[in-house]
């Protein structure tokens, strides 16, 4: 079989090739237009997420329950005012004395968080004689290494950033709420204005500028300690914290491997 290419076919093939080459800039431009419609303008760079690994440590013994962190977080991140939306909040644990003659060493556990601890806590109405132990526990996104929320997201809008923060891409979030159900720590909520899922971002706009997260900045008791594992400073507070304390994580049995470490925590804290 011998191929004879007619003049007409040859010219046709050449015209096709030329057309394909000519269409390349058009294809590029159309791709850029579609992307612009989908995601807005690309942002400038200057912060390399692979060069950091952020970590939050919380010393339960140093939390005085003033709720300044909750206030600061709401202001800093423009969290809706209503008392059901929090990126961070403070819980009060009250462990009652066990019933006489019972088998327990510790009694009933009461947990409350009036308005997320915003504005501080009034003394509890539980009589002091009945209380065995009481303390405050600040809560925030647990920065899971294997985050259930990122696995649940059907559009890849929630992701584990290489620097350890678990973030939500608001331009791609479709507001389905799967991540809110997936988070075992209840750290997410649906923003009623933007209709996208929201959560603690470790004040991403602050830490990328070299500032501390808002809650860490205002904490009067230094109960919250924040640092970078990849760039330890002199007398690094994180290294000191993990050296001096026995550290725990919340719900370790779930295998989420949180990077928020708690010290001096009781077994009742969930």
């Amino acid at each position: 079989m011998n191929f004879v290419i007619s003049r007409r076919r040859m010219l046709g093939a050449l015209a096709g090739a030329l057309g394909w080459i000519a269409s390349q800039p058009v294809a590029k431009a159309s791709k850029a237009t579609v992307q612009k419609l989908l995601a807005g303008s690309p942002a400038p760079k200057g912060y390399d997420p692979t060069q950091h690994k952020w970590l939050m440590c919380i010393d339960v013994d140093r939390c005085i329950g003033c709720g300044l962190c909750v206030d600061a977080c709401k202001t800093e991140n423009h969290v809706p005012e209503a008392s059901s939306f929090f990126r961070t909040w403070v819980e009060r644990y009250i462990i009652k004395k066990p019933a006489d003659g019972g088998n327990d060493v510790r009694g009933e556990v009461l947990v409350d968080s009036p308005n997320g601890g915003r504005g501080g806590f009034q003394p509890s109405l539980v009589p002091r004689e009945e209380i065995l132990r009481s303390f405050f526990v600040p809560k925030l996104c647990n920065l899971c290494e294997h985050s259930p929320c990122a696995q649940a997201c059907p559009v890849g809008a929630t992701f584990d950033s290489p620097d350890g923060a678990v973030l939500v891409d608001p331009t791609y979030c479709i507001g389905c709420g799967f991540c809110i159900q997936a988070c075992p720590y209840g750290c997410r909520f649906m923003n009623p204005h933007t209709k996208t899922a929201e959560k603690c971002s470790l004040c991403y706009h602050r830490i990328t500028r070299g500032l501390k997260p808002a809650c860490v900045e205002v904490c009067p008791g230094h109960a919250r300690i924040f640092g970078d594992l990849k760039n330890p400073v002199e007398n690094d507070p994180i290294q000191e914290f993990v050296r001096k304390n026995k550290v725990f994580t919340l719900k370790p049995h779930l295998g989420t491997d949180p990077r928020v470490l708690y010290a001096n925590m009781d077994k009742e804290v969930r």
Partner: protein
Amino acid sequence: MNHFKMPPQIVRLVLLTLVVVGSYGVARRLLVPPSFGEYGWFRGAAIAELAQTKPVLAGMKSCDECHSEILQTLAKHDHKTLSCESCHGASRTHADDPDTKPPKVKFADSDCLRCHQSNFSRPAWFKQVDPYEHFRGDHCTGCHMPHQPKDTP
């Protein structure tokens, strides 16, 4: 001469497959964000976009640029662990442009009691008072200076 001729239905099938696969390829090229997969299974540009929000709290470092005297006083006394904005409120607008007055904060006794009111849930090392037993003057600031709480004005 080979008389084998490709059956037309096969030709149509091949063409149809090419069209389907080709249109999938074109759609994928157009729809997948350019920075997708830069760091992982997500749009890499989202990281830089999220970092663009403007901070509301200025941070203690920017206060230190002008008010370092007050900060030095604070560092010598018991309120040294506090940040300026813990009590004075978010002040980035003032830090960016010192001519803009920071939000005026009216200090009330409740601002002190928020931390110092005796509460069984607070850790025992922390200084707490029962305002009804402890209170002698008009206001907390009548006896305690906020920057050096053990000194009387």
